[in-house]
């Protein structure tokens, strides 16, 4: 089970989808779970809006989106084992109020879905299009938040099992996606520090997306070009790339994916990235 997160807008849904396409091409049974916002995953998988029921995208690849009320219902029945005969309507209502109000409940219900799928074991690989970095830790930390809030009972017991699953290096990992720009890199650095302080999950690596290719010209050569589009575009590239280089230096080593020029649809982006994964060892 791999969570993919990053600052909003760096392409984490694209990377999630590309990993899923790659693994499905390699014959694995893959499930994509969109955790907070599902449009990104759906458009990159070139499919209609996702629902809570897994849908077959292509051979070996299913996808679903977590929504609060279905997740809550499943959490009650399957995770807390509240019997069907119990007045679940009142219970669900009470818990949905709790989910809106108490810290950690909504998060644990949401993160409960991928963990539940992990326990169910119907897939080889679960890829989670996780919430952006700003919210990620409130999800990953939810089990311990719950333990602070709730002294005993089924939710607490479940929270402890869940945090053990997240901390299990063999079953759960986190991939961070960034672009070589100031704010995404800074947020990534902060997340890495936080992971060191609170090792809630194993870090699998940092992927840098939208890296500009080498121009192949020095600054001086750029200035020898005649006035006009050739020089302007070369200057633009030179400048943009030198700004990227500064931030690339601050990102830990890991896979780097190129800026994809002029690609129109999200589906094409994910397929292209999956092709690039294929070329890597």
């Amino acid at each position, binding site marked *: 089970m791999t969570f993919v997160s990053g*600052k909003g*807008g760096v392409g984490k849904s694209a990377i999630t989808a590309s990993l899923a396409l790659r693994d499905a091409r390699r014959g694995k049974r893959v499930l994509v779970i969109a955790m907070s916002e599902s449009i*990104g995953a759906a458009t990159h998988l070139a499919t209609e809006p996702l629902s809570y029921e897994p849908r077959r995208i292509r051979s070996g690849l299913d996808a679903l989106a977590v929504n609060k009320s279905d997740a809550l219902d499943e959490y009650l029945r399957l995770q807390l084992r509240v019997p069907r005969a119990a007045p679940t309507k009142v219970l669900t209502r009470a818990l949905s109020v709790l989910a809106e109000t108490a810290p950690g409940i909504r998060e644990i219900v949401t993160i409960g879905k991928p963990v539940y799928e992990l326990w169910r074991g119907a897939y080889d690989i679960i890829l989670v299009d996780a919430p952006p970095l700003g919210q990620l830790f409130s999800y990953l930390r939810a089990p311990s938040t719950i333990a602070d809030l709730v002294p005993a*009972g*089924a939710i607490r017991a479940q929270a402890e099992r869940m945090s053990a699953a997240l901390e299990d290096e063999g079953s759960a990992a986190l991939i961070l996606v960034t672009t070589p720009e100031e704010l995404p890199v800074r947020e990534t650095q902060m997340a890495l520090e936080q992971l060191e302080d609170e090792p809630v999950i194993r870090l699998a690596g940092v992927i840098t997306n939208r890296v500009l290719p080498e121009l*192949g*010209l020095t600054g001086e050569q750029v200035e020898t*070009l005649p006035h006009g589009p*050739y020089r302007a575009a*070369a200057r633009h590239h030179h400048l943009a790339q030198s700004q990227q280089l500064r931030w690339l230096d601050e990102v830990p080593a890991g896979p780097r994916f190129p800026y994809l020029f002029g690609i129109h649809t999200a589906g094409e982006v994910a397929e292209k990235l999956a092709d690039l994964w294929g070329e890597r060892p």
Partner: protein
Amino acid sequence: MSTRVLVITGAGGVGKTTLSAALAVTAARNGLRTCVITVDPARRLADALGIESLTNHPGPVAAQPGLSAAMLDVTAAWDAMVYRHADPEVAERLLTNPFFRALADRFPAAQAYAAGEQMAEHIESHRWDLLVVDTPPAGGGLDFYTAPGKMREVIGGKLLKWLTGASLPGRRTLFRMTARPALKLADAVLGGPLLEEIAEFLMDLRSLYDGLSKRARAIENHLRQAESIVVTTAEPTPLREARRFFEELENATGRPGTVVFNKQLPQEWTEVKNLRSPGIPAGVRSAARENLIRWASEVRLQHDIKQEFSTRYGLQLINVPWASEAPTSVDALAGLLIHSPDLAARAG
């Protein structure tokens, strides 16, 4: 004095805060008494404005006469709001309640609502000709418009109604409710008298309702009169957020009159002619050609995306060119709008 208001929204990273500052500097230079409220400006922008630190009280920008700046402080705005609308005793209880802090920190509408309260205060101070409001990026800025209504719902007892059934109970009925077997089961599952604590908290929260509800309506009224400017780039995430203003807003409040496409590349890059220039080595020539072809495809992509957007929503879009370097002075900020007279006109 009546205050004109520009509300600048957009996803994170589109350059919204920078453009807000550029509009504010331009307005001050046009002789308007101007205040810009920013959300978490990057260090460089604060340097460009020549300001050391910002608080939620507007302070003069030394580098630009006529301009003041303030920063959104969500915690301060929430505390002020509670003291304004609740009895002192209830206010103390709420501000130390962990559920309340959780709600304030995490409910997406809460931050946006706090920004709205702050905006209303600055409008009602009648100190400004023009107020430029940079908004929190949550929900692509859409939250800023829907937050007053959502807050009214939450504070007004939506949660309490869910918890107890259809009608709003008094305190005593509430405790009879929590004694019901189903809720006893819930408490057993949760392990503690948690629901009772929450019900008590929700009752406290509801006592804010009358004051907050009136305030929320005032904020909605200000928002109706404000001019909405949505900033986007041609990238998928910001575009998706910008579309939501047209797809999801039920009434026209906040429906942007102006959509700005930031970081646009020059159209003439698509007119690739042969690079004929004697004396340029073949290697340099081919690298330059390859580079221009790449960027030309990006220009065509931007063009197609803008075309589609403007056709679908029947809008004229405003282009702001890609700026090669982040502005480091008020002159550079004002310079950002030189090639976008339609946008600069909003600050007139």
